[in-house]
């Protein structure tokens, strides 16, 4: 474990879970599980006592140092790095925006390839996260369980038989587990069948988050689906439920894409080619516009309209052209216009049309 770990080491490296390889990765970008845990006897971070928070960081550190994970983990004290560095970690999905803004002692352990991480003293004392490429709940669960088991042997969790894991927010009480996946649904959105699909096929206890409405594909047609209930349902059943829902999304999106290609092929090709032309030639690309263009490019790759582009590059771009990443890459603070110009350059250098 490197005590003096520097966020800069991440620049230029991309998270391994973006490799675009997993099952159904044409539709499901990634699968994530996170567990919320608190340590017995310490106040939650909502009523913080700095001495206790330091103690929590130390005891988790001790647990990790004594485990097999130690050789592949990086440790960062989040309160001693800059705002920009924390923003950078937010963009990499390692910490939440909420965590970036707190000012109490907190830290993160980051596993090899960023497949898993442990955030200490966020909303709960521990937030353990595991991410996989594509639809892969099994491996995400297997990985996170190993970490949870190691910690369980070394620290005492706040847990009762009646209520399970006691979390700061009652929405996480019980298993403390949130299973989610990100999916790219241009077919369902473009055929305007999202409402119909959600009404008919999504069971209660599932939360779907997405941006749509006026500017339809403004946010890249990306949706996040997760379990809502953590109490009264076992970990195993939650996983099965999310897997089942994911399969419905995949099937309906596939059908929608087929429908699109059968009925509106020329419009789809036009959309893809226009996006390509802009990305190849534009000098200024704002981040929202990029998400929308990227969605069209991704659809073009999936439908084999664009044959030379690798999905992995598109996944990586989603992360590395975000504001903090661009600034870390350049090594200095940049204003919005400067970032939009640099974004256009990075995209051109990365995508091989």
């Amino acid at each position, binding site marked *: 474990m490197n005590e003096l770990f520097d966020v800069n080491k991440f620049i230029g490296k991309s998270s391994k879970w973006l490799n675009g390889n997993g099952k159904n990765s044409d539709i499901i970008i990634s699968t994530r599980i*996170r567990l919320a845990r*608190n340590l*017995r*006897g310490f*106040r*939650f971070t*909502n*009523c913080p006592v700095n001495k206790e928070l330091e103690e929590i960081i130390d005891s988790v550190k001790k647990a990790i140092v004594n485990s097999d994970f130690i050789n592949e983990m990086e440790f960062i004290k989040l309160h001693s790095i800059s705002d920009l560095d924390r923003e950078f970690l937010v*963009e990499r*999905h390692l910490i*939440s*925006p909420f965590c970036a803004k707190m000012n109490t002692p907190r830290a993160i352990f980051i596993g090899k390839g960023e497949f898993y991480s442990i955030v200490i003293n966020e*909303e709960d004392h521990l937030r353990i996260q595991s991410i996989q490429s594509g639809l892969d709940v099994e491996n995400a669960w297997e990985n996170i369980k190993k970490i949870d*088991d190691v910690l*369980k*042997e070394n620290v*005492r*969790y*706040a*847990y*009762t*038989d*009646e*209520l*399970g894991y*006691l*979390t*700061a*927010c*009652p*929405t*996480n*009480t*019980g*298993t403390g587990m949130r299973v*989610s996946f990100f999916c790219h649904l241009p077919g369902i959105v473009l055929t305007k069948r999202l409402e119909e699909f*959600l*009404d008919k096929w999504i069971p*209660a*206890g599932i*939360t*779907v*988050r*997405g*941006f*749509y*409405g006026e500017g339809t594909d*403004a*946010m890249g047609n990306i949706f*996040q689906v*997760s379990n*809502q*209930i953590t*109490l*009264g*349902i*076992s*970990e195993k059943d939650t996983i099965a439920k999310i897997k089942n829902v994911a399969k419905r999304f995949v099937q309906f999106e596939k059908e929608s894409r087929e429908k699109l290609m059968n009925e509106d092929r020329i419009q789809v090709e036009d959309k893809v080619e226009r996006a390509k032309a802009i990305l190849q030639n534009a000098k200024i690309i704002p981040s929202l516009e990029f998400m929308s263009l990227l969605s069209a490019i991704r659809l073009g790759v999936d439908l084999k309209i664009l044959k030379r582009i690798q999905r992995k590059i598109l996944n990586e771009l*989603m992360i590395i052209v*975000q504001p903090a990443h661009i600034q870390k890459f350049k090594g200095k603070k940049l204003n919005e216009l400067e970032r939009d110009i640099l974004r256009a350059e990075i995209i051109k250098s990365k995508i091989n049309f």
Partner: protein
Amino acid sequence: MICQICNKNPANIFFTIIVNNAKREIRICKKCADEKGLANPLGGIPFIIGEIIFGMAEEKIKEMDDSQVSQKDIKCEKCGLTYKKFKESKLLGCELCYETFKQDLKVILRRIHGNNRHITAETKNSLSKDKEILKLKKELNEAIKKEEFEKAAHIRDKIKFIEKNE
């Protein structure tokens, strides 16, 4: 249209979540979206979703009979969290809060999860109750010997909690 979070700036991001088949439309401005972590479609599950789910549970609670939910001004002995502050922040202050606000939490948890008892496939738990209490009692004696009374009180709280809850 005005942002639903700050009630000031014009809303230009439309955001929809579906919770329990109920659709919630949220219209917010770019600034609030950035602050709440909603601007990045790939970001983590934002805190606001927790707030919305909680809010929906609360709406239902309000419809219920007053006798079912206590309105008393209770306060957690360990962390000092008041019921009012819990309602505002939607966050509890410590594990003992689960004991302090037990009556209300029963209702709130049922409203959020449709259930208020934990189910797990796992049986493996860290230390057994007796072993853990024995260990803590040893720590307690030592703390008293060293006249570390603050620490001793802390350990005594832990023992009480375990004896009561497991």
